[in-house]
């Protein structure tokens, strides 16, 4: 297919692959990027929230022409039972700043824009091409890739795998094991269209202000997971995700769960009269620090979802993807300048640099959280029910005196979970969180 040799091949044109390719091409490296979709973004699904900080480090003036939906001025965290929610909302005019911190985006549009920047930086992008496996020399060093095009062998000094959560190329080339059903979530999502003035009045917004709702509770039918609702300019992204092994054991369909969430009395009016234009699904790596596979070897580096770089607690992923992609690119540029070989020993610099960033520090901080959430389903069912019932007891004025109400609430918690259970949960959470 292509006779010439490249400094680097990047597998995938999502946030991590784009960040890596862009970084290397900007520094004069000859980069080939391969994408299996018809266009970048055609296989990608995200909520989606863009974190400005990670993108600014690559493209400082991205706000000039990136397809951004709304900058987020309000975050709502909801704990839900079947008829209610208890919410913590944070809204601030400080988020109406010149360089806003977080935006909602529509991935297919954003990825096309990002890819244009990557190509303008000099990267050769070939779409509709699926990488099948890595090519190795007699010493086992990765020297290129084989694609599904005829004669599809292409050579390079290093292959950067930004192939996404499934990581099939890496798996089949023996770099890492299959995903575990307990450490990956399946999320389903719909795009609901409404006139922008309807969205603005429903969410109390003006201009390009946006709201994000993250929800947990009985909406996941006892499974470990969360729901979300994000405002875009003329659409609302609504979705829900749970751990794959929970879905397999629970017997609930993902689309049935999404439908129940959409029909919750607190969500339904927000979507009323909207037109759904897409239903999508994707896996999210949620195993955290302990699920991170080998990240580098002789002639290869892993970035983004393929490396399990998702902070499930804070719902961050694209920023980790862009940061790992950028640092992988910078590491390759640095080694190339020193005329060092792209060997396993030298590429260890990638991991050293990552360790110094929020990416590894946050994943390390929360490394016990995935196990805690998986093993403590009361967090998703019992506690949301208790908290919502307590709120109702507290706010309903029915002639009962306040001290009786307090006692009733405390009794409901002790009865629901027992005192040792409550203390144990608090202790376990504190230990997993710190």
């Amino acid at each position, binding site marked *: 297919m292509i006779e010439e040799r490249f400094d680097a091949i990047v597998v995938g044109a999502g946030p991590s692959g784009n960040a890596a390719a862009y970084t290397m091409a900007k520094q004069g490296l000859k980069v080939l990027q391969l994408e299996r979709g018809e266009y970048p973004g055609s296989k990608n699904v995200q909520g989606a929230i863009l974190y400005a900080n990670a993108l600014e480090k690559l493209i400082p003036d991205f706000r000039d022409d990136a397809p951004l939906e709304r900058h987020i001025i309000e975050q709502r965290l909801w704990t839900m039972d079947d008829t209610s929610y208890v919410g913590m909302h944070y809204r601030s005019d400080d988020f109406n700043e010149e360089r806003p911190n977080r935006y909602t985006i529509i991935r297919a549009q954003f990825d096309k824009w990002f890819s244009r920047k990557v190509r303008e930086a000099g990267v050769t992008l070939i779409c509709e091409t699926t990488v099948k496996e890595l090519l190795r020399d007699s010493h086992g060093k990765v020297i290129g890739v084989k694609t599904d095009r005829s004669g599809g062998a292409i050579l390079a000094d290093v292959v950067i795998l930004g192939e996404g959560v499934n990581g099939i190329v890496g798996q089949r080339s023996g770099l890492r094991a299959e995903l575990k*059903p307990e450490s990956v979530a399946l999320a389903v999502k719909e795009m609901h269209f409404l006139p922008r003035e309807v969205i603005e009045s429903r969410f109390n917004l003006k201009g390009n202000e946006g709201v994000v709702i993250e929800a947990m509770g009985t909406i996941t039918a006892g499974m470990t997971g969360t729901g979300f609702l994000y405002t875009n300019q003329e659409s609302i992204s609504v979705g829900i995700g749970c751990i794959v092994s929970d879905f397999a054991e629970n017997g609930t369909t993902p689309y049935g769960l999404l439908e129940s969430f959409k029909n919750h009395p607190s969500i339904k009016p927000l979507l009323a009269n909207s037109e759904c234009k897409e239903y999508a699904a994707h*896996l999210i790596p949620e195993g955290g620090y302990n699920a991170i596979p080998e990240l580098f070897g002789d002639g290869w580096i892993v970035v983004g979802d393929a490396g399990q770089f998702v902070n499930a607690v804070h719902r961050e992923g694209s920023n980790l993807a862009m940061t790992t992609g950028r640092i992988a690119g910078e590491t390759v540029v640095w080694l190339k300048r020193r005329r060092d070989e792209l060997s396993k020993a030298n590429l260890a610099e990638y991991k050293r640099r990552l360790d110094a960033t929020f990416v590894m520090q946050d994943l390390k901080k929360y490394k016990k959280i995935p196990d805690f959430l998986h093993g403590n389903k009361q967090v998703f069912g019992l506690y949301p029910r208790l908290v919502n019932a307590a709120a109702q007891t507290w706010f309903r004025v029915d002639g009962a005196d306040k001290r009786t109400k307090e006692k009733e609430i405390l009794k409901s918690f002790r009865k629901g979970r027992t005192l040792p259970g409550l203390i144990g949960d608090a202790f376990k959470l504190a230990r997993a969180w710190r």
Partner: protein
Amino acid sequence: MTSTAEISAFSTKVEEKLYQNRYLVDAGRPHIKVRPHEVPSKALLSLTYTCPAGCYSLNDKGQVEITVDGCFECGTCRVVTAKTGEVEWDYPRGGYGVLFKFG
């Protein structure tokens, strides 16, 4: 106000949901296959409800079958049956399969 939009926005049938999506189907070359079996394992059976596109169904012999046309290429079926090896999974050929308009 009950409009057609209201109906399409709230529909429980997965077929109706998929109707909005774009696909380029690689006719005659399914990228996922269920290995021939007499009795499906519990894991394989679970795909009839865990698959977000509802691609898996039971035939009248109680075996699990797949129609890949609505597939999101999400990987759930491969992950769930990794231990039993009952599903042969690959990406579609480059350019084929689901084409997310919004993602």
